[in-house]
């Protein structure tokens, strides 16, 4: 992790379809970061609602990531598209209260790669 990120709190919502073994894979990183990082595995990113994202910020996250499967690859057809739209809506809302849009970030994975949650998280946190 970059020095500048030290002490920041992260909430990571991710579609569990991207890493079938997420439960095990995320452990090493949780061990390393402790309460600094919280994972919210969801059955489909389409389940994300603006309220979830707001509550994550409210409970202290400095940065919220929503990781979705590649567009077109959603098991439920358009879950990831929904996630994107809802994230956008929430970005507008937090901007109105003077927060950076960037606090909420959508990570849409590229098709054809095998991702594991731990590697992905390391990439995100630099």
């Amino acid at each position, binding site marked *: 992790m970059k020095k500048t990120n030290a002490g920041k709190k992260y909430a990571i919502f991710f579609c569990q379809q991207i890493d079938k073994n997420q439960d095990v894979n995320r452990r090493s990183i949780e061990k390393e970061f402790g309460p600094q990082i919280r994972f919210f595995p969801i059955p489909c990113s389409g389940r994300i*609602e*603006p*309220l979830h994202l*707001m*509550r994550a*910020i*409210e409970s202290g996250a400095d940065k919220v990531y929503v990781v979705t499967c590649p567009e077109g690859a959603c098991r439920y057809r358009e879950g990831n598209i929904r996630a994107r739209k809802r994230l956008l809506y929430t970005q507008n*809302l*937090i901007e*109105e*209260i*003077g*927060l950076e849009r960037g606090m909420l970030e959508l990570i849409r994975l590229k098709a054809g790669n095998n991702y594991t949650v731990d590697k992905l998280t390391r990439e995100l946190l630099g």
Partner: protein
Amino acid sequence: MITAVRKPMEEIRGMIAPFKKILIVGCGTCVAECASGGEKEVGLLASALRIDAKNRKREIEIKEMTIDRQCVYEFIDQLTGIIENYEAVLSLGCGAGVQALAEIFPVAKIFPALNTTFIGQTKEPGLWIENCRACGDCKLGDFAAICPVTRCSKSLFNGPCGGSKDGNCEVDPELPCAWNLIITRLEEKGELGRLEKIYEPVDWSKMGKGPRKIMREDQSI
């Protein structure tokens, strides 16, 4: 249904600035349908205000509540015993709801968090269009159930004007020209003849002399 949109956060913030204990009241009917004042939106606004207050190092206490209808006494009454504990109330009801709340709780400081917009229809997910102006003199029967008062920008009864292009209105090219729709639909029904008649000037008096009311003896207690 009555539609509304949330006021800009800046304006809401201004209204509640002097207060610390705030009750946000949503309405589970029209504004929930148009995703501006239902339970979820109450949650979003509350969340946003709390975060905002925290960032400004202000202390604020917010309670969220959503009642079935903000314009009906029986539902509003659920706030009795709760509303008194708050310095201010942000209503996510339509204008009717806000006024109804204020009437029943005359002492409470009630502020609107929504701008009430129009009576409309959920055209498709995420799109609401106005289709009734509540003129009180419905002529939809003559116009293939497309309201010229509402849906023609100029409320023409003997339209269309000369501005229609590609079937859309010149005022908002995103919207279909109501007269184009009326003519097409009447033509499909073989009833274009209806339009040969010249419609006399509308009796706008039905739209009200001051605030309107409906009195139904059979429905009143």
